[in-house]
Every structure is written in structure tokens, then in C-alpha cells.
């Protein structure tokens, strides 16, 4: 039982990270109807920005965090402008290919600048002991993840529900042209959505870099799993995707613990194929469109 609880706790933490990254996929898909393939690499870039700020420039943590989040948001806006916007009328696969290109550029630029070895950023909790929960331990770093994810989630909820921009994003996600006739500049809203999603992803990247490892291809598996979570929950359903992401983290960790940890990354893929075969619109998605 102890082992189960431990796997569960660790799975919740990684699931929270998947959820943070999944937010971006879902929001961007809502306003652009396109899978932002390069989204997860924003996590990696932000992680390196913070690492460079702290380890190379010696800046304090809060400054590094701020820099990382700003860099992430800026990157999102630039990538949207360069790789997605010119292709908004092209067949869906084109932005996916250009995003693939962007992803390759970012990963290899990081490898070029920082080398392939794993790094870590120190947020000052490494000396703290974890919290004991009836036989299992919640490491301090993972507690930070859970708390941060909760705060982000609540913030996101109020942002979308109660602010003018949040309302505009939701409107554009429903029908961009109908939003336009009411004065909403849908193009600008897309940029803002990228900025917000990327800022959130940046936080996710910082969490991963502090609690786990930071390396150039960090975004590949992270993105694939977050995307799988979106497919499982229904990519148009933001909260469905979040729930699915947390579940995915838990299931993956349990399977890796009890079955085989070598094929850990294959479980997500198996889930992806399974969902696409049986219910492509996801658990919470509407069933009217051909996926």
C-alpha cells in the first residue's frame, strides 16, 4: 500500500506538470484550430533562461523567474507570428510541419549553447525534507509543483471567466468571425493567447527544471504526453484536458512502477492510439466532428 501511495503522489506531481503544458495546447487549439507542436519547447527554453540567469549571471531567483516567464511569452508571440500566422489559411498540416521545424531549431540551439547534459535550477527547497503522508513521502520540490499548479489553475479560471480578454479568448475560440463583427481583433487575440499559454508553459518549464531535469529535448516527451492528455480529455475542453493530464501522470507512474519502467514513455503512446481508435474526440469532447 505504501508503494501504491508513493507512486500515486509522484504521479500527481508529474501529472500536474502535464496539465500545465496541456493548457497551452487546448487554448491555442481553441483559437486557431491547430496543434501547436512547438509549444512544449517553450518550457525548455524558459528553463534554460532561468538557468543562465542564475548559474551564469548570478541573478537572484525571483529575477530569473521573471525573465524566464517573459522570455517564454515573447517566444510564443514570435513563433506565432513566424510559423503559424502565415499558414492560417493553409491546410492544417502545414503549421504542424513549420512547428516541427521550430521545435528542431529550439532544441538544437539549446544543445549548441548549453550542451546535451542535464541541468538543474535551484529554487531553495533541496534542503527541505519532504512531507510524510502515511508511509509515503511527498518531496518538497513536488509539493512546490502541486501548489504552483493549483494557483495557476485558479488564476486561469478567473482570467477566462471574469476578464475582458478572457471573454474575448473564449469568444474567438467559439467563432472567430462572429467575434470580429463585434469589434474583437481575432488576430491580436490569437497572439495574446499564445503569450498567455507560453507564460504558463514557462512556469511549467521552471518546475520541471527544478524538480527533475533540464535538457534540450525535454520538450519532446513532455509535449507528446500533454498532447495525449488533450486527446484523452478532448482538446477543445480545457478542464477536460487538465483532468486527463493529471490522470495520465498517475496512470503512467503506476504502470512504470508495477509493470516496466523501461517502456514508461510507451504507455502514453498506447493510450493515444487507444483513444484515437475508440473515441477520437476524447472523453469530454463533442462528437460531431470528424477527428
Amino acid at each position, binding site marked *: 500500500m505504501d508503494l501504491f501511495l508513493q507512486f500515486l503522489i509522484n504521479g500527481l506531481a508529474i501529472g500536474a506538470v502535464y496539465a500545465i503544458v496541456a493548457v497551452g495546447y487546448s487554448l491555442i487549439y481553441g483559437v486557431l484550430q491547430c496543434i501547436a507542436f512547438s509549444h512544449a519547447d517553450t518550457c525548455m527554453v524558459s528553463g534554460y533562461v532561468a538557468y543562465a540567469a542564475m548559474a551564469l549571471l548570478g541573478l537572484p531567483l525571483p529575477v530569473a523567474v521573471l525573465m524566464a516567464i517573459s522570455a517564454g511569452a515573447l517566444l510564443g508571440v514570435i513563433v506565432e507570428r513566424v510559423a503559424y500566422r502565415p499558414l492560417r489559411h*493553409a491546410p*492544417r498540416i502545414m503549421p504542424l510541419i513549420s512547428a516541427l521545424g521550430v521545435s528542431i531549431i529550439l532544441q538544437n540551439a539549446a544543445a549548441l549553447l548549453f550542451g546535451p547534459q542535464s541541468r538543474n535550477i535551484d529554487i531553495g527547497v533541496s534542503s527541505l525534507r519532504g512531507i510524510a503522508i502515511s508511509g509515503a513521502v511527498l518531496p518538497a520540490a513536488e509539493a512546490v509543483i502541486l501548489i504552483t499548479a493549483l494557483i495557476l489553475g485558479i488564476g486561469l479560471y478567473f482570467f477566462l471567466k471574469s476578464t475582458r480578454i478572457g471573454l474575448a479568448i473564449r469568444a474567438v475560440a467559439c467563432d472567430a468571425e462572429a467575434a470580429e463583427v463585434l469589434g474583437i481583433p481575432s488576430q491580436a487575440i490569437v497572439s495574446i493567447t499564445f503569450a498567455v499559454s507560453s507564460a504558463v508553459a514557462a512556469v511549467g518549464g521552471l518546475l520541471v527544471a527544478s524538480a527533475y531535469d533540464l535538457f534540450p529535448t525535454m520538450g519532446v516527451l513532455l509535449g507528446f504526453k500533454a498532447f495525449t492528455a488533450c486527446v484523452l480529455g478532448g482538446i477543445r475542453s480545457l478542464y477536460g484536458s487538465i483532468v486527463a493530464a493529471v490522470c495520465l501522470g498517475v496512470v503512467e507512474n503506476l504502470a512504470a512502477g508495477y509493470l516496466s519502467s523501461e517502456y514508461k514513455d510507451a504507455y502514453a503512446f498506447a493510450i493515444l492510439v487507444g483513444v484515437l481508435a475508440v473515441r477520437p474526440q476524447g472523453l469530454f469532447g463533442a462528437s460531431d466532428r470528424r477527428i
Partner: protein
Amino acid sequence: MDLHTVEMINSAGIWAILALSLNVIVGYAGIASIGHAAFYAIGAYSSAIMCVRLGAPPWLGMAVGCVLAAGLGALISIPSLRLRDDYLMLTTLGFGEIVYLTCRNWESLTNGPRGIGGIPTLRVLSVPVTEMGLMPWLIWGCVFTLAGLLWALEHSPFGRQMMAVRDNEIAAMSLGVRPILYKLTAMVVGAMAASFAGSLLAHKLSFIDSEAGFGLSTSVMVFAMVILGGRGSIMGVVAGAILLSAVPEVLRRFGLPLATAAPLRQIIFGILLVAIVVFRPQGLFGKLKFRE
């Protein structure tokens, strides 16, 4: 002509076969597959395992590889009917990763990163195929044979119907054409040709391991060759293969250390992908853009 130049020519030839094989899938059938290295791996490992462990003759190793690859290809053609382009692309990515992970982790079968060595050299009529000797002729002979076969396919009624399915599946269906037949054929043909390329690689290098280029970066590179050259165009994708396989060479001339050259090469590919898709989606020699 020194060994190094011949090695380049042989290498380019294998890439050309890969690019032609992907062209059938991406260009003729319109399935955006970025898991193509999986078939390459299957061919290479089939040849390696059959020849080294079981002592089988090379042609048997190749045949087994082709059959296995065809099976996997057929499997992938099923989701290609139900899923739309971008979801399908990500599914193929997943397939490719699964095969790569299996190659790396199923050590009892593949030896993982430690690899399988001692793969025999091919013989044509008792003449060994060596790097400097027969190999360029054999490989490029295969390239031209494959190109010829594909040209025939392209201009056959079957090929025309395949492209009709690619361009407008619903309209094709209304004319009584059944998409599954064409997509299945395309996947199987493409898979088998890629597997053949993998077998050639195994016999050429006489040693393969899981890190020899069976992962996502290889799949993406072949995909980039097809896109750059112009999908659907035989000459285009061969040109794309030659151009992109030459990039590492060009970088080598600058005398960069490997740690710098390798990521730089990838960055160039990434920039090319973005640039082509944004500015010239039909590639250098292609006439078609992606279907609407």
C-alpha cells in the same frame, strides 16, 4: 576518387531510396508520416538478426524485413482513414518512437545500443559488394530501378486513382473508389522499400545499433527531403535526398567539431522546413501543394 567521396555517394543513395519510399506515402497517398524510420529499422535489424544469429542468406533477411515492415505499414493505414492530417501525423510519430524504443530496450533481441556486428557483405554473383567497388553501382542501380517502378505506378490507372483519393477523398468515394485499398497499398509499398534500404544499410556498415539513426531525427530528415524536393515528384525527392545528405559534408568542410556540427546541421534542417512550408510549399521541383 577517394573512399570518403564514395561513402558519401553510397550514403546519398540510401537516403534517396528512403526518400522515394516516403514519397509514395506522403506524395501519392497524402499521408503525412514522420515515423518512417521505423520501417528502416525493421529492415536493418531483420537483416542483422537473420544473417548473424540465424545464419540466413541475405536475401532471406531482406524478405523477412519487407514482410514485417509491410505488416506495420498496413497497421498504420487503418488510422489514416479515420484521423485527420495533423492527428495522423502525431500518431505516426508515436509509432516511430515505439519501434525505436523497442530497438533500444529489447536487448535480448537487438542488443540495444551495443549493437549487432559481423553482418556479412552482400554478394552479387559471387562478387562481394564493397564500398569502393560494386556498392555505388548496386545502390544507385536500386535507386533508378525503384524510381522507374514508381514512375510506372504514378502513371498507371491505379496510381491515378490513388492520387484522386489523396486530393479529394469524398469525391473519389462518390465515384466508387475505396480509399482503404490505395492507402494500404501506398503504406505497404513505402514500408517495404524503406525496409530494403535498411537492409542495404546493415550490409553496408556490417554493424548496426539502436543509435545508428532509427529515431525521430531520421524520420524528420527523410520527411524534409520529400518536402524540400517537392512531394509527388520523383526527381524532386531524389534531389532533396542528395542536397540534404550533403549538408553534413558542407559543415565538415568548415572544420567544426562534431558537438557543434551536429546540432547546427539540425538547425539548418529546421530552418529549411519552416522556410519551405511558409514560402514554397510545393518544394523545389514539385507541382503540388498539400491538399486543402
